[in-house]
């Protein structure tokens, strides 16, 4: 069967959409990280704006609510001098309403230049990228459990900032991996950037053996998964998992897989602790760890704005 070209790249191999980390060459990822470094210094200036996206309209299309992610995208777009329009299209179960493609067509008619899309269904941004006008760029802000590429990139930026060399690291990702788009993006980025040892840690209901196909070592024991790790990425545990018969309670999860000081002691002494946020204190992570010296959760947020500025400015500068 004919496999189409990766829709994120144009015929010259340049990034025109950011839909997922998988399929992107290492050089593309590194270029984004390098560019993000640039924008960090912009964020330290008095005038925190550059005119790269001036006159462009960026539409935040959030079919799934998220104030924090939407806000960071808005800040990033505004720092690039773009006009930002926020559309909260919460899905109502009572009526189907306008179809996804009709919504996109209407917005394109309003001269949108870029869509930042968050959707509860895996693959939605691909459908959008396929059907929008050629000059419009799409950034995936999270689709179902498939991908959250800007989070993956800012996580990589964070790791590179504190640890420098990817090729000698042990990285542990802990929690509800099977449902996590952040985990998938992190895993693809880590493997592409050459991290030799990636552990996926959690109970079998949340970390099935299947995951090994993505290039990770599945660990059902927290101790084994954390031991000697340089980087620990904790994932948020959602309440739905309790009702879906995957876990008995948050308390039992914390007992076995929560990150506490004594579990952290098993990792390398200079290990860093990351979390995409928002954190559930006492569920996946203890407060002393979240606020402790190993935690880089707050720098992640700062890096997130620079990374999003980098992504938007790179794709806006490439033609379809």
């Amino acid at each position: 069967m004919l496999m189409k070209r990766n829709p994120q790249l144009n015929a010259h191999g340049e990034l025109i959409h950011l839909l997922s980390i998988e399929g992107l060459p290492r050089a593309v990822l590194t270029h984004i990280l390098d560019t993000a470094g640039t924008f960090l210094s912009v964020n330290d200036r008095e005038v925190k704006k550059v005119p790269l996206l001036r006159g462009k309209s960026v539409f935040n299309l959030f079919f799934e609510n998220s104030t924090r992610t939407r806000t960071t995208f808005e800040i990033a777009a505004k720092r690039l001098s773009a006009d930002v329009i926020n559309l909260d299209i919460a899905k109502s179960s009572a009526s189907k309403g306008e179809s996804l493609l009709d919504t996109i067509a209407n917005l394109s008619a309003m001269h949108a230049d870029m869509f930042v899309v968050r959707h509860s269904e895996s693959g939605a941004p691909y459908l959008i990228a396929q059907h929008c006008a050629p000059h419009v760029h799409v950034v995936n802000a999270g689709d179902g459990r498939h991908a959250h590429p800007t989070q993956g990139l800012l996580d990589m930026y964070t790791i590179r900032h504190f640890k420098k060399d990817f090729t000698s690291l042990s990285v542990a990702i802990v929690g509800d991996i099977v449902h996590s788009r952040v985990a998938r993006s992190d895993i693809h980025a880590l493997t592409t950037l050459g991290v030799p040892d990636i552990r996926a840690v959690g109970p079998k209901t949340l970390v099935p053996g299947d995951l090994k196909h993505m290039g990770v070592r599945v660990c059902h024991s927290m101790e084994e998964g954390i031991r000697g790790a340089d980087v620990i990425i904790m994932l948020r545990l959602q309440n739905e998992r309790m009702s879906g018969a995957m876990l008995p309670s948050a308390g039992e999860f914390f007992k076995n897989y929560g990150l506490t000081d004594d579990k952290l002691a098993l990792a390398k002494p200079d290990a860093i602790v990351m979390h995409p946020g928002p954190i559930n204190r006492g569920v996946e992570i203890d407060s002393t760890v979240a606020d402790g010296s190993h935690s880089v959760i707050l720098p992640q947020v700062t890096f997130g704005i620079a990374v999003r500025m980098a992504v938007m400015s790179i794709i806006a500068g490439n033609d379809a």
Partner: protein
Amino acid sequence: MKILIKNGRVIDPVSGRDERADVAIAGGRILTIGVVSPDFQPNRVIDAAGCVVAPGLVDLAARLREPGHEHEGMLESELNAAAAGGVTSLVCPPDTDPALDEPGLVDMLKFRARKLSLCRLFPLGALTRGLAGETLTEMAELTESGCVGFSQAEVPVKDTLVLMRALQYAATFGYTVWLRPQDGWLGQGVAASGAVATRLGLSGVPVAAETIALQTIIELVRITGARVHLCRLSSAAGVALLRAAKAEGLALTADVSINSLHLTDVDIGFFNPAMRLTPPLRQGADRDALRAALADGTLDALCSDHTPVDADAKNLPFGEAEPGATGLELLLSLALKWGADSGLGLPATLARITSAPVAVLGDALGSLQSSAGRLVEGGVADVCVFDPEATWVVKPGVLKSQGKHTPFAFDATGTALPGAVRATVVAGNVAYTAAA
């Protein structure tokens, strides 16, 4: 109408005939195969030079979307699609709206199909009222109206007591129950469990959804002695269970769809909604097992699983897209492709879409059983004339069905399909001729 089909290569899988011969048709029946008397004055001559003259195809699963989903497929367009595909008899599942659980609905459907004279229609009646899996339908009444068996379509009966009773009741009268082996709870994902679903973040349907349901069905068949036709097997493990059950002598038959026969989960690519299908596309090893099983007869027949889907219902994110693909016009080509890949000759290949499906239907066909799926003098004149060497590309504009979505579309595959239908004859009437 008197028809003469000349110069063709006549292939009849049942008798083993495979030779150049002419075919004379009159009064809805085949008069002569071989040398036709010069006295025969045909109203219509079909020149089958370079073509195969085969029995009309029998498709065990094609949805016509009537009654109910008229915006998806009017009876006329879908039966025209059947004729264009060389299909002269088709079986339609009962998941119409309302479900085919009332004799009146079946009568109406058969009446309208007969008037169109494009293809013979054999409906499956609903096994339970409204397909709800609770109360039985009036199977005798429905059979009298023309149902050839009873089915739950894609809706599994979760209550095993109800399922057992339904099989017992059907067994009393010798009705065949058509069941798709899929566990109601395990089967709720949108893609087959495996590396692809994991990577794409799509909820998975494990093989266990099929094997657990199969084992339940097989056990109930043992107990009740019912005849069951298993619809759309999708996994190697499922095939293994079927093989063992058949070896035991249980009254089981099974089919596989053109989609599962040729595609795997990798073909989902970048969330292509044309690949959103039930059963979901599984892995390469499963496909290989299905192909081998169809060749050795463990899987009796190949069907199109024709399911026209509205553009609005397909152009959605993968998990929300309605499952299904158009298939009537692709059944012959995809059978030929599989046959060629498997090294089977034309007769063995054609058997899977002509005589074998007829054998599955068995005496539900009544008197038709003796000649449907066959080319025999004195038998019904259901014929498909096709050029095995021709190729064609699948494009929406070419398809007669209102369902334009198929994984085999040229845009996706970049390849042409083998085999082009030149003429289709149903009950001695020309239902379709290809444009010159």
